């Protein structure tokens, strides 16, 4: 049991690792918390599938410092994000805004789910209808019952 706990703890240990270095962290914990929230929304432009909060790339570090600098200067969270958005475009946002260019991106999952539910529902209801169609008429039911009876009597003899 102890070994299992140890293994699990060791397995989750890497999750504690972070790219934010001690010299970047702000003295004010409230500002630092906001900086971490913002950093998680911004994509690293070098590594592309990581947020800047967890990236070790040089540009990501620069952007983290920039975020903290803007926050210290009194910017709101939205203003900080806008500042970086203006320089790096939609690409830098991990959650892209809903615009004319991103309509397909946002709506495709909904359309696909709707289509899946529709086709699934249609084929299920058709299958059920076929099953009720396939039910035997009373005459056949009676013949089968008679045959079963004969078989059971024959089996007991």
């Amino acid at each position, binding site marked *: 049991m102890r070994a299992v706990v140890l293994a699990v703890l060791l397995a989750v240990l890497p999750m504690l690792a972070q790219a934010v270095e001690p010299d970047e962290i702000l003295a004010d914990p409230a500002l630092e918390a906001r900086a971490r929230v913002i950093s998680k929304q911004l994509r690293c432009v*070098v590594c592309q599938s990581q947020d800047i909060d967890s990236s070790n790339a040089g540009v990501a570090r*620069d952007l983290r410092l920039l975020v903290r600098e803007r926050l210290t200067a009194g910017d709101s969270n939205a203003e900080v994000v806008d500042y970086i958005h203006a*320089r790096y475009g939609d690409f830098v946002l991990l959650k892209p805004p809903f615009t004319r260019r991103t309509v397909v991106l946002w709506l495709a999952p909904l359309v696909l789910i709707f289509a899946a539910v529709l086709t699934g529902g249609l084929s299920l209801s058709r299958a059920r209808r076929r099953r009720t169609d396939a039910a035997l008429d009373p005459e056949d039911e009676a013949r089968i019952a008679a045959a079963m009876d004969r078989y059971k009597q024959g089996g007991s003899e």
Partner: protein
Amino acid sequence: MKRMLAGLPLVLAAILGAFFLWGLDPERDPNDIPSVLISHPVPEFALDPVPGLDVPGLATADLSGNPGPVVVNVFASWCVPCKAEHAVLSRFVERDGVRLLGINYKDKPEDALRWLAELGNPYSAIGSDLDGRAGIEWGISGVPETFIVGGDGTVLYRYVGPIVGEDAVAKFTLALQQAQGGLS
């Protein structure tokens, strides 16, 4: 209704096929990050010259009011591909008379001096971007990156990575010619 449904797989196959064809296009680079600067004025920045170098620094004002397009190259002595690109850029300057301006990105001045002394200096002006802040203003993701800026200070083109090799040089030359109005 039934006949319409029978045609549905064909329509779906055509739509998916077109999508896959688009995805397989070798010209399409999914890692390509579109620059927001294109057809916008150059960002606000002001960089001091590299200490000890005989060319001036670089600021926003230097990039407007030029008689023709200029090339702004972000480089560093620690960047290995920049060394390969240096020869290409030098040739553009010597052969085609391109005005080349540099942003020395996060480089120690003494390293930059040694690098330029060794390879030659094709840049008419170099701004020293010690903390990388001007790099962020330009929206760069790494070095080298090269921009073509119109005479009026509008960013016309951005090339990410070293301009090395036939394809890259051809691509950049074409962009440069378009910027010059197809004159050269």
